[in-house]
C-alpha cells in the first residue's frame, strides 16, 4: 500500500512560488495499475518523484508499505560520466544485488554490446531508455513507477518491455505516466488527470480522456 495524505509541493521560481501539487491525497495497493494523464509541466513527474521518495513534499505525508522502484524515466538514475557497466555495478551495490548476473541480463536485454563500456553520456535517447529499462528490471519491486519510458525506442524494444513489465510482472502495482493515451488505457484500471495542481480520479478511461482533452483545449467546438 502506498498512501499519500495532503501532499503539497511548491517550487520557488523567479516569479515567486509556484504551486505544483495542491493537497493531493490518494492511495493504491498491491497489483493496482494507476494511469495519470496531464499536460506538459502539470507536475506528473514531480508526483512520481515524490511517490518514489527521491524528493520530499513541501508538506504532507507519504507512507509506503511495499517496495517502490525509482522513477523509470529516460534521464535520471544514471551517472553520465560512468560507463553503462559501471552504472549497473553502482545500482547493484545500492540494492545489494550480484553485479555479474545483472550484467549478463542487461547485455542480453539491451543488445548494447560494446557500448556498455562507453560513458552513458555518449548514448542516444533510445540506447539510454534501453539501458534504463533493463537496469530497472534487475531489481524486483512490488510497485513500479513508469514515467514515459515507452515513448522512445523501436518496436522490438517495446515488445520486450511489454513482456517484462506486463507479462512477467502482471501482479505488481504500477503508476504509469504517459502521453500515449492508448498505452495508459490498455494497461491501467484506474485513471486520474492532473491539472493545475489538482489530481482528479475518474471511474473509467473515457471520462478521464475527455477531461484530459478539455485541459488540452482539443476537441472544443
Amino acid at each position: 500500500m502506498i498512501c499519500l495524505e495532503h501532499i503539497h509541493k511548491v517550487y520557488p521560481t523567479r516569479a515567486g512560488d509556484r504551486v505544483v501539487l495542491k493537497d493531493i491525497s490518494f492511495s493504491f495497493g498491491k497489483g493496482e495499475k494507476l494511469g495519470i494523464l496531464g499536460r506538459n509541466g502539470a507536475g506528473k513527474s514531480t508526483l512520481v518523484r515524490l511517490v518514489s521518495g527521491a524528493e520530499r513534499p513541501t508538506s504532507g505525508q507519504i507512507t509506503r508499505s511495499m517496495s517502490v522502484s525509482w522513477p523509470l524515466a529516460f534521464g535520471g538514475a544514471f551517472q553520465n560520466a560512468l560507463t553503462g557497466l559501471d552504472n549497473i555495478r553502482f545500482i547493484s551495490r545500492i540494492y545489494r544485488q550480484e553485479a555479474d548476473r545483472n550484467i549478463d541480463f542487461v547485455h542480453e536485454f539491451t543488445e548494447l554490446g560494446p557500448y556498455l563500456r562507453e560513458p552513458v553520456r555518449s548514448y542516444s535517447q533510445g540506447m539510454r531508455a534501453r539501458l534504463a529499462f533493463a537496469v530497472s528490471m534487475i531489481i524486483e519491486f512490488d510497485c513500479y513507477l513508469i514515467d514515459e519510458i515507452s515513448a522512445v525506442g523501436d518496436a522490438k524494444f517495446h515488445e520486450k518491455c511489454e513482456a517484462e513489465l506486463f507479462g512477467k510482472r502482471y501482479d505488481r502495482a504500477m503508476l504509469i505516466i504517459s502521453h500515449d493515451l492508448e498505452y495508459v488505457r490498455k494497461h491501467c484500471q484506474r485513471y486520474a488527470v492532473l491539472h493545475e495542481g489538482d489530481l482528479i480520479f475518474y471511474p473509467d478511461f473515457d471520462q478521464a480522456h475527455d477531461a484530459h482533452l478539455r485541459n488540452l483545449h482539443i476537441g472544443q467546438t
Partner: protein
Amino acid sequence: MILTQLSALGRSAEVQWRVIHALLMREILTRYGRHNIGFLWLFVEPMLFTTGVTTLWTLTKSVHGSNLPIVAFALSGYSAVLLWRNMPSRCIGAIEPNLSLMYHRNVRVIDIFVARLILEGGGATISFVTLSLFFIYIGWLDPPADVLTVAKGWLMIAWFGASLAIFLGALSERTELIEKIWHPASYLAFPLSGAAFMVSALPPAAQHYILYVPMVNGVEIVREGYFGNKVNAIYDLPYMIGCCVALTLLALAQVAIANREITPE
C-alpha cells in the same frame, strides 16, 4: 521494543554503508578512471604536493622561527593544510554531478559528502604516513616522539575539515557565492593556519589571537607529537573541540535543509 529499534537501526546502518561504498567506487572511477596509475593518484597527488613544498622550503631555508629540521616542519605543516583544505574543496558543488543518482531513494546528500570525505581524508592521511615513513627510512626525519599525540592532532584537523566541508558543501547548493569565496579564503587562510610557523615563535600578543584559528591548534598538537619536548607547543584543545562541535551542528542543519530542497534531475 529496544531490540526492534536496535535492529531497525542496524538495518539503516547497513543500507547507509552500502550506499556510501557504492558512491566511493563511483567517485574513484570518475575521478581517477582506469588509465595509468588510476586510483593511486588518490595519495600520489598530495605526496607530490608535499614533496614539492618540502623541497622548496629546504632550498630556500625557510625561516620558521625554530631550530627544527625543515623537512619535518614542512611535512607536518603542509600535510595538515592538504587535510583541512581538500575536504571542503571536494565537497563544494559535490551534489550537482550526483543529482541523477538521487533518483534512488537511499542515496542522500550526507552519503555523497561522506564518500568524498573518506576519499580526501584517506588520501591526505596515506600521503602523510607514507612520506613520514619514507623520510624516516632515508634518515631525514626522526620517528615521532609520541604517535598517539600525532594521531590526536591529525584527527582534530580531520574533524574540523570534515565539518567545514559538509557545511560549505550543503550551503553551496543554495548559493554560488560559496564556491567563489572558498578559493581566495582558503588561499588566504594558508599562512594563518600554522603550517609555516610555530605559535611559540610569534610575539606573545599575536599568540593569543592566532589560537582563535582552529587549525593552528591541531597543527601544534601534531608537532608536539612529532617533536616531543624539543618544541614548545601552544594550543587550546577545548576551544578547538568547541569549534568543531559548533561547525558539525551547523553542517548537519544545512544538510537537513538541502535534503528538503533537493530536486533530482
